[in-house]
């Protein structure tokens, strides 16, 4: 039974389009995240979100926005896609954040986004 699942696994689209990536976790965690892994395999945090607070990495363009319909889902919406957005996007979840914030994060298998 998959703990953190993302759809789609692959996404190929044209520059300028708007797209969404879905993420669901069945671990009962209260915090979810989006990470971006570039072509050099470097993983960087984009967003951290629980039901109280959204924390945004200041380097993330405002074309990217997370949307959480409920505690188990955190979707990623991207507007006006650019060539540089091509990467693998990973969703993750964990229990707890803030002062403790030290619980392991569990990752999905990623969505490979390719911009033509």
């Amino acid at each position, binding site marked *: 039974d998959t703990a953190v699942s993302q759809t789609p696994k692959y996404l190929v689209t044209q520059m300028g389009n708007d797209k969404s990536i879905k993420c669901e976790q069945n671990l009962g965690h209260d915090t979810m995240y989006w990470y971006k892994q570039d072509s050099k395999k470097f*993983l960087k945090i984009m967003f951290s979100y629980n039901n109280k607070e959204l924390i945004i990495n200041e380097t993330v363009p405002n074309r990217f926005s997370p949307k959480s319909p409920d505690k188990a889902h955190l979707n990623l919406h991207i507007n006006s896609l650019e060539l540089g957005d091509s990467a693998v996007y990973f969703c993750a979840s964990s229990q707890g954040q803030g002062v403790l914030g030290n619980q392991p994060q*569990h990752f999905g*298998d990623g969505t490979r986004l390719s911009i033509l």
Partner: protein
Amino acid sequence: EDQVTQSPEALRLQEGESSSLNCSYTVSGLRGLFWYRQDPGKGPEFLFTLYSAGEEKEKERLKATLTKKESFLHITAPKPEDSATYLCAQHSGYALNFGKGTSLLVTP
């Protein structure tokens, strides 16, 4: 800004040849030092969390240790199935701050 540096970038070992991967971190008030394994086309898989200097954790052929400035992932008598990218990360307070990883290849 807090930084995590991993070395070497790539490591090739013969099956059974033990070695260590290094992770150097610069952070005040460490809230956890994490090791993950990532296979091609997959998400990072959690291995260990270390919280304080002197702490050690083991899982099969892997052993993680922590000092005030570094963490080591020791691989004893590796097998080809241990081939993967090993990622180290510190907790920044709201998310994980990853190093660039060590790509390990174990040949028969």
